[in-house]
C-alpha cells in the first residue's frame, strides 16, 4: 500500500511536469509564432524599445525556451530572482511568476482565488450528493411509479439545462426580485453569515446540475445491484428489506458514485467558469477567463497547473478510497 502510494505520488509529479511543459510550450511558443511579444504585454503598447528590452531581460524572456522552462520549474521549488542588473525582484518559492496585467505575484493571487472555489465546491457537493443519490435511490425503489417519472424528468432537465440559464433565472427571481439573497460574494473570514447567504444560490444551482447526473447514476446502479445474486442471498437469509437495501445494496451502489464524485470535486476546485461568471464570483475559473482574454500568460500557467493538480490528486484519492471500499481491489 505504501509503496503504491509512493509510486502514485511520483506519478503525480511526473504528470504535473508534463502538463506544465505542454502549457508552457503552447503559451510561450504561440506568441512567438504569431509574432506577438510577451515582453510587450508586460509594458503595454506605448512603451519605448528600451523599456521592452529591459523587461524582456528581467523576465528572462530573451533566454531559450528550455532555459525559461527550467527557470519556471526552479521558481516553483526554490523561488527565483528576476534580475535586471540593479533592479532585482525576489519571488520566493513556490513562485509562478508575475501577472503581466496586474504585476501581482501569481501564487498568492491563486491562493486567494481558490478559497472561492473551495467554498463553492464543498457546499454544492454536499448538497448534490445527498439530494442526487437520495432521489436516485428512491426512484429506483419506486421504479415505474409517477414519482420515479417526475424525478427522472427533473433529472433530465438538470442535465440538459445550461448553468447560465438556471443560474440567471435563480438570480433574477431570488436575488433581484425577491431579494432573499445577496448577489455578491463575501469572504468567510469577513462575515460567515454573508458568506453563506451569498453562496446559497450558486450552491443550489450548481448542485442541481450535478445532482441530476448523480440521481441518474445511482438509480441505474441500484437497479443493477438489486438484480445481483447476493441481494437474493441477503433476502434468503431473512433480512428485513431496509437492511437488504440500506446495507447490502447501498454499499455497492455508492462505489461508482465515489469515483465520479472525486473527479467532479477535483474538477470544480480547479475552477467553475460558468458558475463563477454567472454569480460574479472571483475564483480560479474567473481568473482563467480573464487571463486568457488578456493573454496573461503566467496566470494562465498557474491556473492550469492548479486545475491539473486538483484533478490528478482527486484521481489518486479515489483510487485509494476504492481499495478501502472494495476488498477485492489490491493496490500495488
Amino acid at each position: 500500500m505504501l509503496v503504491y502510494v509512493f509510486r502514485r505520488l511520483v506519478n503525480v509529479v511526473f504528470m504535473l511536469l508534463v502538463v506544465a511543459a505542454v502549457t508552457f510550450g503552447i503559451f510561450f511558443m504561440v506568441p512567438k509564432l504569431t509574432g506577438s511579444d510577451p515582453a510587450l504585454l508586460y509594458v503595454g503598447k506605448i512603451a519605448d524599445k528600451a523599456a521592452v528590452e529591459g523587461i524582456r531581460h528581467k523576465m528572462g524572456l530573451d533566454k531559450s525556451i528550455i532555459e525559461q522552462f527550467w527557470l519556471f520549474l526552479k521558481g516553483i521549488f526554490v523561488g527565483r530572482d528576476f534580475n535586471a542588473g540593479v533592479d532585482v525582484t525576489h519571488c520566493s518559492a513556490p513562485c509562478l511568476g508575475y501577472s503581466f496585467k496586474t504585476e501581482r505575484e501569481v501564487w498568492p493571487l491563486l491562493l486567494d482565488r481558490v478559497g472561492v472555489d473551495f467554498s463553492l465546491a464543498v457546499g454544492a457537493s454536499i448538497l448534490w450528493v445527498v439530494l442526487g443519490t437520495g432521489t436516485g435511490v428512491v426512484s429506483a425503489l419506486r421504479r415505474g411509479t409517477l414519482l420515479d417519472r417526475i424525478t427522472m424528468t427533473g433529472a433530465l432537465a438538470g442535465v440538459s439545462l445550461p448553468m447560465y440559464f438556471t443560474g440567471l433565472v435563480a438570480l433574477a427571481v431570488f436575488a433581484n426580485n425577491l431579494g432573499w439573497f445577496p448577489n455578491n460574494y463575501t469572504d468567510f473570514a469577513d462575515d460567515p453569515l454573508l458568506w453563506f447567504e451569498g453562496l446559497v444560490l450558486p450552491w443550489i444551482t450548481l448542485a442541481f446540475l450535478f445532482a441530476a447526473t448523480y440521481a441518474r447514476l445511482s438509480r441505474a446502479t441500484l437497479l443493477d445491484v438489486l438484480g445481483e445474486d447476493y441481494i437474493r442471498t441477503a433476502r434468503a437469509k431473512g433480512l428485513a428489506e431496509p437492511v437488504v437495501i440500506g446495507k447490502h445494496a447501498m454499499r455497492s451502489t455508492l462505489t461508482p458514485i465515489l469515483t465520479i464524485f472525486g473527479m467532479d470535486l477535483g474538477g470544480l476546485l480547479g475552477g467553475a467558469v460558468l458558475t463563477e461568471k454567472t454569480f460574479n464570483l472571483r475564483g480560479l475559473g474567473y481568473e482563467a477567463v480573464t487571463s486568457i482574454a488578456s493573454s496573461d500568460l503566467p496566470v494562465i500557467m498557474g491556473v492550469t497547473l492548479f486545475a491539473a493538480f486538483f484533478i490528478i490528486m482527486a484521481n489518486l484519492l479515489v483510487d485509494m478510497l476504492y481499495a478501502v471500499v472494495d476488498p477485492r481491489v489490491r493496490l500495488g
Partner: protein
Amino acid sequence: MTDSQTAAPQTATVPAPAPASDREPLLRVTGLTRHFPVTKGLFKRQVGAVRAVDGIDFSVNAGETLGVVGESGCGKSTMGRLVTRLDEPTGGKIEFEGADITHLGVGAMRPYRRDIQMIFQDPYSSLNPRHTIGTIVGAPFRLQKVATEHGVKKAVQDLLELCGLSPEHYNRYPHEFSGGQRQRIGIARALALKPKMIIADEPVSALDVSIQAQVVNLLDDLQQELGLTYLIIAHDLSVVRHVSDRVAVMYLGKVVEIAERDSLYASPMHPYTNALMSAVPVPDPRRKERRERILLTGDVPSPLNPPSGCRFRTRCWKAQDICASQEPPLTAAKAGHQVACHFPENSATE
C-alpha cells in the same frame, strides 16, 4: 438430425491406413509454455509467474479427435488459446502440417487462420447481436476475401443447412435463436472456410442436456462428412469420452496422462484421472451404494507456486518421497498410453 441408424462405424473417422508413427500429425505441440508474469514493488520487478501452461507435448493426427479434460485452472483453455494463436506462448513450439507457427505475425498467420478455426463456449456472447446470421456466418468469406462459386449468400445458406439450421434464417438476428441454435451458428461460421482443424473450448457446456446431445451428434456428423480434425477442450469426462479418439488429462499446467480413449477410460493409470472418473456422478441410484469413490481432499494448489516434483502429490494418496523430489516424465506405459506418474495404477493389467 440424421437418423442414428445411418451412422457409420467409429473406425471410419480415421481416413489414412498408414501406421500412426510415420504419418506427420496435423498439429504437433512440443514443450508449450505460457507463463503470466507477476510483478511487485516500486520498479515492477518480476517476482514470479503464473505457470498456466508449463511445458506440454501432444500431437493431433488428421481426422482424429483429441479431447482435453481437466478442472478449472488446469490450463486447458489457455492451451486452446495458444494453439489458435490468440495468445502468445512464452516457450515451446506449435507446428501445423509440419510448419512452425509458434511466433508467426498476424499477416503470416492469416493462411493458417483459414485452416484452424475455433468454437467458443458461450453461444450468447460470441455472436454479435447487431449482425444478421448471414453477416456473421459470411464474415470469414469477406475477411479472407474468398471468392465463392454462387455468391456468399448461397454459401452461407449451404452452411446453415449443413449445421441443421434453415436457410431462411439468413436474415434473422442471434437473439431470435435458442442456445443450441446459436451454437450451430457458431459452428457454421467456423466451417465457412473449410478448415482442416476445429478447436472447440467447452462447446456444449452452456447448453441444456437435450440440446447438448444434438450438438455432440452434429460435431460427429461434420467430422465424418468433412474429414475434420478436432481438438475438444471440456471439463465433462462423459462428453469427452463420447467425442474423442484420444484423451489428454491436464492438471496444473501439465499433461498427466494421454491415451487412446478406450484404454484411458477402461484403465486410467494416473491417480488423478482415477479420482476424476470416480467423482463423476452417474444417473444410477443403485450404483452409489456399491462403488468406491476416491474423494480428493483440499483444493488445486496455486499455479503461481506449484508443488515440487509431481504436482499432484499434495492430494495424492500414493505419494512417496520421490514424488516430491523428482518430477515424473510423461512416458509410454503401454501401447498408446502415456502417463506421468511414479506409481501408476492399472499398470499390471494387459
